[in-house]
């Protein structure tokens, strides 16, 4: 059995993923041989990075090359620990951090709640408390008075060397921050919070974060306006093209309003939708126009992209993006912001940024789930549930549900328009993460995708298959409603990896697509049963 102190000891591999030991999937997914071949790390990655945690790389930090570089790394890492405990540098999360560091009873009550740990066949390295306890011991030893002596006395001595640091970093990207374990902890300790603090230390002190979240994520968003790289002119052109698409597909004449001062609603999508799932923003436009809503989109910096990747790894990046999004709304003088189908964007803007915003920027922010529920139940749209006569299940995005308590509105809609709606087990605030949480859905460097599909998404896939176990035949088309852009990204890749569309006929998509599919104003079904 791997022990926490092993983290500092040199070894080619601390652990590895053995598919045979993992939680089995139902047939036809039970054969290990049918899995796509694993990606091999390049020789360069092997030479420069430390993949000795579990053979995978998510961040791929470069290993220090000299003794001097290693000492420098250790020094800066320890300085980062001090900053995490400083009220100046970490006022935003200091309370939560110290409570979780100081009050864990090591009772392991939380561990079975973790979909990653259980799916992996209970691999010690993925145990929610493994990472937390390692970090706790490091903090206690290196950032607290008398820590070194106490660490020896208590038998909790961990050596911080380059191997420890590099493995700790990779380990912080083996948790989706889903907070299922926190929900189960009787002390109120939060392993996910600790994971985020580790990520934060690396980003804010050592400038180390996954490229997809930082350079190509929040930095890109603050530079051009969106983490997709879409500039305002391009995004406007694309949406105009989508308006044409709506006309062609449905005959409806829609012009998405841009930068309309005084509109009631500023709709902010996860801009990833515009490129990857254009049917989603199109469906929103159809619904809003049909319901007679006064709405607009904004072409201001961050005003057309609701994502906020800083939520997962960096307080400064988080705050910068959050403020700019509401500034866009303020400039237009809208009555409220409605957040499109993106879970983390919901939480970032409505919960985490809540106290950060000065009064004049506190523009009301509403979930599209409640907003759509009100439209659907008001009878403003002519809907025929018979148009959605296929099995539908609902995925609960962790950020929107477990961390915001938005549970029922989306169910009210589905119950009204999908006669074959069925729940997954468990669901609601006890749901399982899709496996793409905390940025994983957009992370695909090195061989990380293999881990994401083999381990992180495994529990969810099993749950989805079980929800449709009465109709496994691929000819019966089924729909996983995932009202979150990142979750959809994970489902797309996960389903591709396991061949779910082919083997089981399961499609994933958003909530608005189902609403539009039920609209009697449309001649043809809106949902095209094509996997993309």
């Amino acid at each position, binding site marked *: 059995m791997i022990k926490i102190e092993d983290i500092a000891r040199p070894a080619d591999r601390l652990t590895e993923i053995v598919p045979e030991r993992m939680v089995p999937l139902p047939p036809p997914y039970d054969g290990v041989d049918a899995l796509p071949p694993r990606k091999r790390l390049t020789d360069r990655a092997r030479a420069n990075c430390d993949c000795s945690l579990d053979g995978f790389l998510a961040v791929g930090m470069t290993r220090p090359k000299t003794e001097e570089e290693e000492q420098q790394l250790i020094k800066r890492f320890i300085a980062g620990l001090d900053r995490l405990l400083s009220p100046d540098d970490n006022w*935003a999360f200091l309370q939560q951090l110290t409570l979780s560091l100081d009050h864990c009873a090591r009772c392991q009550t939380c561990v079975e709640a973790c979909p990653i740990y259980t799916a992996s066949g209970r691999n010690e390295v993925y145990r929610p408390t493994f990472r937390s306890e390692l970090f706790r011991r490091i903090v206690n030893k290196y950032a607290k008075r008398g820590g070194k002596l106490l660490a020896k006395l208590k038998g909790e001595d961990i050596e911080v060397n380059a191997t420890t640091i590099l493995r700790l970093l990779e380990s912080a990207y083996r948790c989706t921050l889903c907070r299922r374990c926190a929900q189960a902890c009787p002390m109120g300790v939060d392993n996910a919070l600790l994971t985020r603090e580790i990520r934060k230390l690396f980003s804010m002190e050592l400038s180390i974060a996954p490229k997809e979240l930082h350079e190509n994520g929040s930095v890109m968003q603050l530079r051009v306006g969106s983490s997709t790289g879409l500039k305002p002119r391009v995004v406007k052109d694309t949406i105009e093209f989508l308006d044409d698409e709506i006309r062609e597909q449905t005959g409806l004449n829609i012009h998405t309003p841009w930068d309309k001062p005084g509109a009631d609603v500023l709709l902010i999508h996860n801009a990833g939708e515009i490129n990857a799932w254009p049917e989603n923003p199109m469906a929103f436009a159809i619904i809003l126009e049909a319901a007679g809503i006064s709405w607009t989109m904004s072409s201001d910096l961050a005003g057309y992209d609701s994502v906020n990747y800083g939520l997962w790894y960096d307080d400064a990046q988080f705050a910068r993006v959050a403020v700019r999004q509401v500034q866009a709304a303020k400039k237009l003088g809208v009555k409220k912001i409605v957040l499109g189908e993106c879970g983390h964007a919901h939480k970032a803007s409505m919960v985490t940024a809540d*106290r950060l915003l000065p009064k004049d920027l506190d523009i009301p922010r509403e979930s599209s789930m409640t907003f759509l529920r009100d439209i659907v139940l008001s009878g403003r749209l002519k809907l025929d549930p018979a148009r959605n006569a296929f099995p539908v299940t609902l995925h609960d995005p962790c950020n929107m549900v477990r961390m915001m308590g938005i549970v029922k509105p989306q169910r009210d809609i589905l119950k009204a328009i999908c006669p074959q709606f069925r729940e997954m087990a468990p669901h609601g605030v006890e749901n399982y993460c899709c496996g793409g949480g905390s940025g994983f859905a957009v992370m695909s460097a090195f061989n990380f995708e293999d881990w994401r599909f083999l381990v992180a998404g495994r529990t969810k896939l099993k749950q989805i298959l079980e929800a449709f176990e009465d109709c496994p035949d691929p000819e019966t088309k089924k729909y996983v409603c995932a009202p979150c852009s990142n979750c959809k990204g994970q489902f797309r890749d996960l389903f591709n990896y396991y061949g779910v569309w082919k083997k089981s006929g399961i499609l994933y998509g958003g909530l608005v697509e189902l609403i539009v599919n039920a609209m009697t104003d449309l001649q043809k079904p809106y949902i095209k049963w094509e996997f993309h």
Partner: protein
Amino acid sequence: MPPLTLALIAAISVFLLGNLCRVVKAMLMPVHLRWDLYPIPKGPRDRQRYGGSYFEETEWWTKPIDTGLGGEVAFMLKEVFLLRGVFENFRALWVWSLLLHWGLYVYMVSAATAVAVSALGAHLVFERTLLLNAAFAECVDACTLGGIGSLGLLATRIFNSRLKGFTTRATVFNLSLLAAIFGTGLIALFHPNRGMLIALAEIVAGRHATGAYSSATVCHFALVAFFLVYFPFTHMTHMYMKYFTWHGVRWDDLPARFDEGGRRAIAKNLARRVFWRAPHIHEAADQSWAAVVSSSGQLGKTEHD
């Protein structure tokens, strides 16, 4: 003052002061950002049942927000007295943990009863006997429950495969200490000469003579005194720090628009200086948080400008 009385008074003082310090320290932490976790026991009961929040309301900011503590108290009572979380998530641990916790609770009640005896005048013989008998029965229960609980927990911690890799020296020490307290308590209670509870009543009243008690009694109180001093420096303070982890963090869902004080506190936090050293944090050295937030972190203009 007799040495045992002195030792207990000193231990209780450290206990109170140590715990007070922990609470004050937690209270003085800077106001933090929200980190809600549902279910939160607030709002209408049917919503609480599935873990819904006020965000489910149409234009939630126009509706009253439930700041009542009723649901929180009910939840906490279940957590404290029934260990609901452990029951639901780790049944093998729950049995022993419940016994230990109830042992501690009943022990506190019996100590309070014995202390009450010391407050009664010597002439109230009937009342004193009644209370002493009650305290005796309580203490026997407490030590039995606590003793079985702590030993059961110790064994579970050492042998259960889910736990053993994470059982620290401190855990073994804490449980052994508790087992010793309950064990010596039981022995002292049944000492033929003078029961431990009479001793406690006398000690509290400052009336006993050194050496008059059984060694089990002296040993028991010495262990209790040590435990009281040690307790505030351990994670066992979770007993009351749960107030902060639950009420102060995961249930702290009050929106800023209904919490002007909180907003002001955050505004003050934004004036703090930032010392993080990654290049994207600072455009100039040692800026305030407010300056960092309003900068783009790009060391220059954005492509949007």
